[in-house]
């Protein structure tokens, strides 16, 4: 499942980053590596929480992040 399609409040683990080049490396640098737990906090632009920090990404950037959704709140 792509990060963008996750619902607000959902949590999951990154399965894969499917982009190379500057964006791919940048995502890795910011801590978005496979296995990292993420909580979705808002969309458009995408807002996520990981390691106690809040990151934002454009929608099309979030399309390159494949997720394994763990649980659903509510």
């Amino acid at each position, binding site marked *: 499942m792509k990060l963008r399609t996750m619902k607000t409040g959902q949590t999951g683990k990154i399965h894969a980053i499917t982009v*190379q080049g500057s964006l791919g490396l940048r995502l890795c*640098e910011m801590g978005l*590596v496979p296995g990292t737990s993420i909580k979705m906090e808002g969309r458009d*632009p995408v807002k996520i929480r990981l390691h106690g920090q*809040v990151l934002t990404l454009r929608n099309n950037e979030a399309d390159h992040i494949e997720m394994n959704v763990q649980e659903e709140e509510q």
Partner: protein
Amino acid sequence: MSAALSIALAGNPNAGKTTLFNRLTGARQHVGNYPGVTVEKKEGFFTWKGHEIKVTDLPGTYSLSAYSVEELVARDFIVNERPDVVVDIVDASNLERNLYLSCQFLELGVPVVIALNMIDVARSRGIEIDADKLAELLGVPVVPIIARSGKGVDKLFDTILETAGTAKNIHPVMLRYGFDIDQALSEMLPLIEDNNLLTDQYPARWIALKFLEHDEQILEKARAANAGLTDRLLQICEKITNHLQQTMEVYPEAVIADHRYGYIKSVLHQGVIHEKFVGDRLYTSDKIDKIVTHRLLGPVIMAAVLYGLYTFTFNYSTSLVDLLATVFSTADTWVNAHLPDGPLKSMIISGVIDGMGGVLGFVPIIMFMFFGIAVLEDSGYLARVAFMMDRIFHFFGLHGSSVMPFIVSGGISGGCAVPGVMATRTLRSPKERMATLLTVPFMNCGAKLPVLTLLIGAFFSAHQARYMFLATMAAWLVALIAAKFLRMTVLRGESTPFVMELPPYRFPTLRGLVIHTWERTWQYIKKAGTVILGISIMLWAMMTYPGLPQDQVNTFARQRQIIEQKLQQLKTDATADDNIRPAGSNLMVELETLNSNEARARLRNSLAGRIGIALESVSRYAGFDWQTNIALVGGFAAKEVIISTLGTAYSLGDVSTENTTSLKERLAGDPHWNPVVALAVLAFIMFYAPCFVTIVCIAREAGSWKWAFFSMTFNTIFAFALAVCIYQTGLFLGLGG
């Protein structure tokens, strides 16, 4: 006293680097630019236990790859300048990501001291860090500090001195990157070592790693040093890339990053970190964000904040601006009274003093703006603005942060492009920044306003408010479309990744704000000031020379003499006769007309005048006469000059921006002018070449004069095309009257 020690401060953005830098150096700092790029280079000095220490504040980075200018600058500094110690500032409350950069210093094999900053914040979040354990596992000193209060900084200094004394032979740390990558590395290593490929600058293993990461800078250097070997190494990289793609669908750089994080996790899990609370907790920052970035409330608050910044910049600085204006007009008066008439006096008044006024007049505005921006930046709000505005601005090829320079430049009409251009510094994406830099001058700055008011008042007085509003809208529209156009042509290319951190809100420190504001303002005075003064004198010369031929000067003098004689005659005949008064005032009017005619003749004959007349053959397609042309040339000095120059060109004597009634009536009654011409001129003035102060600032901010000239020609051609369209359409529709 020993020789100066050199240290570099490195770390993630928002880790507290600048706070520490300001604490160390105070006012003893110097801000410049790295050669050829627009990244700020901050250096400073301090003394500790008899050692003179030179500190360089490197740009905040998350990594040392070659993808951003900041990262390249930081890496090059460390590799080329070889500081005695790299002080890596690490945010204790976000250890995992911050150590990613530290990890790369270890791989690079440079002497590192880790300053574990904001341990208080971490503690308040229930995170306890065992600094000694971390130091032991990483093999480098770790000193817990609180940069804000200065706690632990003394210990940091001692550690730096110790490390500088002992760290001569540091071995790069060898990380494992998984079987496939390690295999490739072991194939590449002997080739690099045997041929000494760049090994005088970098560790061999690091070079191999950069090959696998496709690091452009290293590849280029390697190619220049040994093209054959580079190709061979690249073949190995390609092989492994294909293999990784086929087996795991990943790229080498992702695997490498993954293993770096793996290494960090393994270090942290060996008892370095103790978390008391588990799970999510709403911190103050999140509570604020719930309101401030709310779907509906967020934009309202943002509009209020940006409007506040605007008001603060332009309204609160007025008293200082006025004070400066008084100082310069006093100087004018003094020179006027004490120097004999002549070219020297004219140059000192119109060139030097007015030029200095032009340079320094912007200082209060720039100071207030940078103070306001520093508050927004240091508190963390600016990142939220970028977050909320990005959706709109990204559509036009810009960045969410572009909104602020636009507002300051006149997005709310009445701003100024000079601070606007300088405000683009807060943008970190190079292409988006350049596009912003080149389009903010389209906004209606405070100097264009009186000109717009004049023309609208003269020809569209019935709908004045509506036209002013339309002018603001048109400016936004044109600027955004021009940005899109530039990003599709000269500034074509992928957007810089937007991925960014929303840092926790923090109270800015007053010390930080003051230093921030002062250093940026001083940079403007020093760097832009001299050039602006020079150009100001040049423009004065253009509007003054060559003077009128002697015979014409004589004619005017003779006529003046005749009138003055008549006046004298009247005075001596004065017998309290009431009939004299009208005669006298008639003579006074005659004298004024004569002076105005002479001023007009002088302007016409000057270089600027000749340019204006020569341009008439082209400008008539847009309906401009030579008087307008001269005024537009003058407008390059400053847009408000258009009014006074038009006044002189139409023989109206001195027309000030405050009182334009005579000029308004003159234009409204002139057979050459009509609403269509006025509209064409209006459009041209809004969009043609920015004033030269802006041009100088664009050159400074873009790092080259090439872009400054581009801005001048591009804007002028665009504005002229628009004016021609308006005028010709108007003529075609028969509206020209």
